């Protein structure tokens, strides 16, 4: 406030408020090195709000005014999109659009690669008439595809052995040898499928379509998990990478759901806790960035700048160093040294020690990534993280199971 007659005040330099872009997301992409570089390159401030998967999607759906950009996975678009929390992204404003890979645009890395069941990102990518999401190309998309990976589980080689015989199987998540030392990721669109793959691989159950299970199939799976729980198979569940690392470090688990960056965090457990390349194939996921419905004008322009920045190479390189792939790898390659590219994307042995996203060594010279090269891994996707038709039912049943695992109760 100033007095109208106090003309001298007008000579003072105007107070310029620094522009801010607010990003809501998970630990997958909200990494400090990404934020710092984006701030430097884009010239506006960027604020990260990080939450676990479930809190994040609830927040995104119910409070779209609280963020500008939402970084999450394609599978949860079924929730956030249909809540009306997001606005379409115009691909004409995405410089790298043509270089985004076929894995997301077509559903597989090549014409002959397996598509995987469940919510393949292509099924949620394009906006269709009537506000639906689908695979038929259109000018507007729901989420800009960025980071992705093929997940599996980690196992203690002292329990299951090394080498390729027997080859790692999802069945190990329900294996007698690991009884009492098994943990699952607590997310009903993720850990639920680790359990479902284990149930099929072990021959206990068979689902007509594991990517869209019926109520009876969900009940059968929950009954199997409950039986195993009562027999004492599970030692816990986790929601974030830090918790997963602690379980492995403490020796509490012999096998558990795993995310790639967690391997880089292991110290004592590192020699024996190994990433599986399951015989049955991978459970994949695809992340991306969406625009909040409230964005207009200058802030919308900033959000587009940030989205384009994401695909300009630097972020893709940071993601690679924690074991995640980017939707336009060629640009990330410009920001990776040849040894990094060879290890993370080509499946070659590490020519030297490699650093993770924050600088500490996460890969030792001579190590080789389980499952090999990007395309080999991407060809073996059997299921995507999925929000099935019966998700509301499955998520509530899963939640009850998780609470019982944590409480160790009998009911």
């Amino acid at each position: 406030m100033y007095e109208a007659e106090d003309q001298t005040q007008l000579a003072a330099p105007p107070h310029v408020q620094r522009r801010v872009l607010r990003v809501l997301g998970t630990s997958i992409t909200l990494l400090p090195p990404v934020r710092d570089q984006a701030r430097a390159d884009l010239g506006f401030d960027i604020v990260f709000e990080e939450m676990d998967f479930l809190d994040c999607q609830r927040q995104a759906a119910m409070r779209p005014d609280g963020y500008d950009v939402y970084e999450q996975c394609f599978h949860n678009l079924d929730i956030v999109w249909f809540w009306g929390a997001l606005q379409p992204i115009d691909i004409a404003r995405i410089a790298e659009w043509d270089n985004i890979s076929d894995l997301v645009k077509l559903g597989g890395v090549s014409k002959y690669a397996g598509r995987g069941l469940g919510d393949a990102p292509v099924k949620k990518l394009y906006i269709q008439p009537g506000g639906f999401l689908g695979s038929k190309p259109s000018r507007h998309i729901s989420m800009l595809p960025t980071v992705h990976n093929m997940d599996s589980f980690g196992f203690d080689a002292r329990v299951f052995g090394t080498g390729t015989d027997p080859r790692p199987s999802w069945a190990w998540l329900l294996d007698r040898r690991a009884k009492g030392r098994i943990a699952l990721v607590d997310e009903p669109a993720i850990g639920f499928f680790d359990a479902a793959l284990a149930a099929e691989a072990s021959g206990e159950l068979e689902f007509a379509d594991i990517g869209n299970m019926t109520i009876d199939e969900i009940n059968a799976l929950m009954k199997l998990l409950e039986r195993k729980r009562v027999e004492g198979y599970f030692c816990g569940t986790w929601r974030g990478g830090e918790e997963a690392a602690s379980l492995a470090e403490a020796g509490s688990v012999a096998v558990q759901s795993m995310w790639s960056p967690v391997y880089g965090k292991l110290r004592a457990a590192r020699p024996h806790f190994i990433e599986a390349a399951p015989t049955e194939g991978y459970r994949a996921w695809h992340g991306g960035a969406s625009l909040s419905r409230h964005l207009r004008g200058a802030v919308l322009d900033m959000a587009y700048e940030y989205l384009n920045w994401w695909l300009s190479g630097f972020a893709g390189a940071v993601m690679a160093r924690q074991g995640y792939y980017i939707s336009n790898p060629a640009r990330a390659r410009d920001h990776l040294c040849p040894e990094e590219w060879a290890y993370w994307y080509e499946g070659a042995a590490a020519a030297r020690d490699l650093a993770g996203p924050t600088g500490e060594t996460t890969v030792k010279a001579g190590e080789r990534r389980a499952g090999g090269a990007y395309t080999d891994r991407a060809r073996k996707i059997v299921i995507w993280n999925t929000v099935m038709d019966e998700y509301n039912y499955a998520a509530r049943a899963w939640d009850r199971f998780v609470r019982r695992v944590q409480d160790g109760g009998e009911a």
Partner: protein
Amino acid sequence: MIRSANPLAQEPRYELIARVLRENIAAGILPEGFVLLEGPIATVMQTSRVPVQAALRQLLEERLISRFDGRGYLVGRVTAGTVPIRRDIRELDLLIPPMVDDALQTRGTWRHVYDEVEEEVASCQIFGEFRIVETELAEHLGVSRTVVRDVLARLQERGLIRKSAASHWIAGPLTARTVSDKFELRGIVEPAALRLAAPHIRYAEVEDLLERIETDPAITPQEMADALMEHCIAQAPNTALVEMIRSNRLLLSAVDRALIRLGLPPDEDTIEQYQTLLDLISRHPIDSACEYLRDHLSITARRYLARMKIVAVIPEAGAFAPYLSPQ
């Protein structure tokens, strides 16, 4: 329990509440622009919010009140110059006829409480499976167990609850499968009923509604669905068919209302579809409207299933009545 001699005690509570509000609007005690909120009205009427919601919906249909850009409803029509009057309704000294007041306090018959229980029992099913304990329901409603048994029998008859092997009353869960089945049935019977209804449709009401879509931006998809049912489909001379359609839609529309109460945005895209449909009904051979209705229902089904998934992120705490025990 002594049955009341008051004839109004047989009426659903929402009817009584609607009657009180209507009379107070007519008398000018509730002035134009007054903001009506569920909670305070429920306090004045000494009821739960459910019958108040139903009463307000009825007044909205009668166009005595309107929606506006804020919480609650406004008395009268919203115009550019309308200034919302925000005052506590409890200070207004509402006119409540003694007969109505007495009837609102009388909890003798099942009809009196049925509608609110039906709404609660239907909408809880999105959260899973629930057991209803007779004694707890009786206590909650302040009625005898005899009345509760009448209520439960009616709920069972309408397919909203069932008896488990252990003889417990069970509601839900509402699954995607149930929703798909119900919409499949709708796709078969509703176009058929519309065809039968053609000579009996209230065309003047349809025209009126078409005009309202053009002029009233506050019109909701739910009002349109109800109007389509009442003025068109329900005019089919086959009463058994109409009854079947009504009971098949019961759960779907109760859940839809529950979703909106929980904060989901109303399904606005469908208004355009209703407009097309009503236009076909009023100006073209009925066959084209029947075909369009079939398509519209299949799109609505997809949208409904998508909205159901969202419910998974809504916490259960406090979302359902205390007499419903999660199983």
